[in-house]
């Protein structure tokens, strides 16, 4: 096999399936999704075809080589640099005319181009037929039809790339046409090559859009979907979570018995079982089931193309706060992982608006935080009573309360965006063009594999990696004593007077601080700190946990303040690092911590003072 340096670059408009083609060619799992701007970083991969190796570069979507955003600039520079032996321009068969503007522009830079008309299956469904041979004659470069989802056309594409890469360097005619000329040319080419079987080929999409984005049904469906996703997550996670807890507890019993048998010293079982193992098992039992349900549901909505509709519905409010509607997209990504969402903020073109989105992103609780919020809601606010004993009605109440929590997070996002754009990030809203892509039928197998492997396991693995040292550190802090008090007691006692002002206690605040590497470990730290004081060993169910918390002076106010503080405090270490990488500024990273921390402190303080003044709790 020759390892000659043949670099192939994938270029195309946003959301035409570049990443899917990339995955098909390389067998890699680059993240895909039905919304423009999914790929914000250049991905690289390799494949072998007929004994030759090809290096493949996936670029962020661009409408043209005339750069209007940093991503387009990167793509444009890459194309012009001549680094790629062959440029594969991916086009959307259902929207060929608009795509041809970029094709024509690239053809003015280089002639070593292969055109790949993707989504031929979608076009067929819409009765759009494209005369690929005619298109090839018109453009003068190979044109290959493809269906990235099924992989159809990939061999042909590889063959075309291979023969194109062996062609001698033909210099393109140096001519720069105006955008007017290109658009006109694209129009005439399409008139000759594209045939529409029915005039209203997008009628179904338009009907769905009218439902999803009209005045009344739009917001209603958005809220219902949000609550529904949470309800399915809560009710679906209930039983697996309980079963996992039981299972881990059973294993723990076995391990303790074993350690006793071999007469291991007390600190061994303390450090490894009470410390590391318990934090680990809490993280897995409480975090894994909600993630394994939430991520596929979210990926489903993403692949369907629903997220750009959310941005469309919410843009007006972001505009009122002088921010960008695409912030709604990065907000949605925050549900999965705030660090990923911060990178995703690159889809926002204006640097000012991008910073606003970065600074306010952690108001949306990520997967590491909302399972803890669910647990607190279940313990203190959606308590089963004799009258509402059914699990279903209880989970509905939990889902609605969680939705309310999330909505307050969104309101906080809008409010803080507004404050930021009135103070340190002043400016007028920049221009806004958002493409609403055609709806695509998500493929279940792909959703499950991708959301479980790429997201769930990835996030879980990170939490597990963090929980091992965290469990050890907390156990050590709990067992190293200075002057009769453990380090943990000393630090919680120091924090306690301050924490009381904001409705929490020293232990909770300490847990948030120790939870900086990953929010998943906040509750297990609290449990460990409380349990050691009680001398009680283990907590299998939320009901037992509630008793422990109430023993330590918790009221509904403590739980509420903790929920608010989960929603609004410093971002986790991974997110902070990502913010630093994205902004290249200590100042903005510090501000990204300060903004949610101070608003969280302030809300908790005011709430606590008000409730105490009124004599409640």
């Amino acid at each position, binding site marked *: 096999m020759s390892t000659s340096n043949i670099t192939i670059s994938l270029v195309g408009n946003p959301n035409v399936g570049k990443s899917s083609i990339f995955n098909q060619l390389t067998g890699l799992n680059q993240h895909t999704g039905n919304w423009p701007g999914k790929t914000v970083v250049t991905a690289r991969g390799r494949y072998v075809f007929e004994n030759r190796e090809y290096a493949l570069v996936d670029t962020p979507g661009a409408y043209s080589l005339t750069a209007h955003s940093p991503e387009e600039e990167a793509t444009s520079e890459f194309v012009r640099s001549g680094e790629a032996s062959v440029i594969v321009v991916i086009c959307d068969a259902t929207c060929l005319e608009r795509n041809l503007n970029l094709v024509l522009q690239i053809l003015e830079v280089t002639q070593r181009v292969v055109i790949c008309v993707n989504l031929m299956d979608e076009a067929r469904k819409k009765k759009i037929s494209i005369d690929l041979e005619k298109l090839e004659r018109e453009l003068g470069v190979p044109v290959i039809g493809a269906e990235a989802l099924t992989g159809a056309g990939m061999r042909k594409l590889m063959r075309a790339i291979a023969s194109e890469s062996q062609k001698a360097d033909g210099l393109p005619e140096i001519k720069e046409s105006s955008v007017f000329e290109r658009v006109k040319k694209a129009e005439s080419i399409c008139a000759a090559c594209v045939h529409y079987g029915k005039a209203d080929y997008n009628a179904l999409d338009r009907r769905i859009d009218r439902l999803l984005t009209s005045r009344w049904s739009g917001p209603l469906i958005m809220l219902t979907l949000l609550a529904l996703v949470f309800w399915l997550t809560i009710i679906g996670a209930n039983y697996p979570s309980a079963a996992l807890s039981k299972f881990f507890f059973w294993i723990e019993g076995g391990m303790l018995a074993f350690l006793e048998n071999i007469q291991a010293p007390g600190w061994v079982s303390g450090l490894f079982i009470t410390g590391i193992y318990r934090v680990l098992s809490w993280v897995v039992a409480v975090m894994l089931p909600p993630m394994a349900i939430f991520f596929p549901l979210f990926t489903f909505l993403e692949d369907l193309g629903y997220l750009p509709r959310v941005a*469309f519905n919410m843009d007006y409010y972001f505009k009122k706060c002088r921010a960008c509607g695409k912030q709604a997209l990065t907000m949605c990504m925050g549900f999965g992982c705030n660090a990923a969402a911060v990178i995703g903020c690159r889809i926002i073109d204006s640097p000012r608006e991008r910073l606003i989105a970065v600074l306010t992103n952690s108001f949306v609780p990520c997967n590491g935080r909302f399972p803890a919020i669910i647990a607190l809601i279940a313990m203190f606010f959606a308590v089963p009573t004799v009258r509402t004993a059914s699990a279903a009605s209880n989970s509905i109440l939990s889902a609605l309360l969680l939705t309310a929590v999330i909505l307050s997070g969104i309101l906080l996002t809008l409010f803080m965006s507004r404050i930021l754009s009135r103070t340190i990030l002043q400016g007028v809203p920049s221009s806004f*063009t*958002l493409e609403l892509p055609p709806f695509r039928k998500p493929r279940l197998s792909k959703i499950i594999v991708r959301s479980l492997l790429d997201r769930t396991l990835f996030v879980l693995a990170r939490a597990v990696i963090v929980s091992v040292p965290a469990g050890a550190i907390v156990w050590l802090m709990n067992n190293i004593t200075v002057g009769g008090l453990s380090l943990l007691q000393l630090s919680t006692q120091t924090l306690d007077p301050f924490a009381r002002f904001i409705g929490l206690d020293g232990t909770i605040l300490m847990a948030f601080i120790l939870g900086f590497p990953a929010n998943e470990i906040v509750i297990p730290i609290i449990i460990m700190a409380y349990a050691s004081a009680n001398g009680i060993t283990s907590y299998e169910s939320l009901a037992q946990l509630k008793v422990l918390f109430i023993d330590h002076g918790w009221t509904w106010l403590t739980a509420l303040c903790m929920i608010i503080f989960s929603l609004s405090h410093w971002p986790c270490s991974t997110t902070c690092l990502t913010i630093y990488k994205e902004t290249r500024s200590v100042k903005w990273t510090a501000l990204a911590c300060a903004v949610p921390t101070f608003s969280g402190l302030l809300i908790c303080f005011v709430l606590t003072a008000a409730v105490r003044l009124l004599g409640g709790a």
Partner: protein
Amino acid sequence: MDEKVIPLQKIPIGAKAKVKTLLSMGSVRGRLQDIGLIEGTVVECLQKSPAGDPIAYLIRGAVIALRSEESSKILVESCDGYVHV
């Protein structure tokens, strides 16, 4: 035929209009041209968002949402005398 030139923002849902002039300048103008908005392009108004702004338009086969700030600076002439479809 009605030759009146109005901003794109004003055309009703379902109506089609032909672009006459882009008033915006700089990168906004470039971006609009790149998505195919040049003189003579026929645009169809598809759908308003819940708050009435932005509005989604069909532009050369793609659905693009534009804020009123942008659409008020795109001057168009009616193609069909605003017959609702």
